[in-house]
C-alpha cells in the first residue's frame, strides 16, 4: 500500500489544517487508484460537525454526493479523506476506526500549536483495523 502525494496537494492539506486550528479540518482527495494510489487533486470541505470540532469532524452528505459526482464527471477516483488532529499525533483514534469506510485512504495531519507537522495515511484491512499506508512525496512538476 502506497500513496503518492505531490508537494502541491500536501501543501493544500497542511494549509487547511493550519487555517482551521484548533478545530479539525477535513476534505477529499482524488486521483488514480491502483497498487500505488496517486493523489492528483485535493478538495477541502467544511467540517459539518455540530458542537466541538476540536476533536471531531463530519462531512455533509451533500458534499460527499458532490465529490462522487465530481469524480465520475472527471474520470478520476475519490481516493479518500484527509483530516487534522490538533495537538494530537497523526494516528487514527478508536473513533476514527469505528466510523471508517473500507478501501478509502485516510490521511491524518498532526497540527501542534497551529503548525502542521506530521502527515500519515491509513487504510482499513479486512479485520477493520487500520494499517499504515506509506506516503511517497514528490516534487511539483514544472513544465
Amino acid at each position, binding site marked *: 500500500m502506497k500513496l503518492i502525494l505531490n508537494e502541491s496537494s500536501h501543501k493544500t492539506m497542511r494549509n487547511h489544517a493550519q487555517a482551521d486550528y484548533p478545530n479539525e479540518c477535513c476534505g477529499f482527495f482524488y486521483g488514480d487508484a491502483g497498487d500505488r494510489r496517486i493523489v492528483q487533486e485535493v478538495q477541502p470541505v467544511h467540517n459539518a460537525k455540530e458542537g466541538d470540532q476540536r476533536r471531531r469532524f463530519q462531512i455533509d*452528505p451533500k458534499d460527499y454526493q458532490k465529490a462522487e459526482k465530481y469524480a465520475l464527471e472527471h474520470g478520476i477516483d475519490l481516493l479518500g479523506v484527509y483530516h487534522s488532529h490538533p495537538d494530537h499525533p497523526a494516528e487514527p*483514534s478508536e473513533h476514527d476506526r469505528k466510523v471508517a*469506510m473500507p478501501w478509502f485512504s*485516510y490521511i491524518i495531519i498532526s497540527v501542534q500549536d497551529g503548525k502542521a507537522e506530521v502527515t500519515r495515511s491509513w487504510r482499513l484491512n479486512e479485520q477493520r483495523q487500520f494499517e499504515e499506508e506509506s506516503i511517497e512525496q514528490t516534487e511539483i512538476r514544472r513544465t
Partner: protein
Amino acid sequence: MAKVIIPTPLRKYTNQHRTFDTQADNLSDALQAFVDEYPDVEENLLDDNGNIRSYIKLYIGDEKVSPNENGTIAIDNDTEVSIVPAIAGG
C-alpha cells in the same frame, strides 16, 4: 433507465463499476436488483433486517430519501440514486 451511483468504497464489490442501471420503477426494487447483481454489496449496504444501514444515506437528486421510513418510492428513467456513506471521525 434509473441509475445508481456506486460510492467508491463499495466498488470493490461491483467489479469496479461506478454506476448501476436498472429498469426498476421503485427504489426498493432498484436496490434489490443492485444487490442481486452484486451480492457482496449486501452486507455493506443492508442490515440483518434488510434495511439500509444507519451510516448509509440515499439521495435522489438533492433529496434525502429512505425506503425504510417512507415505503415505496417511485423512480423513473431519469432518476439518479446516490448511495452516500457517512464520513466522520475524530
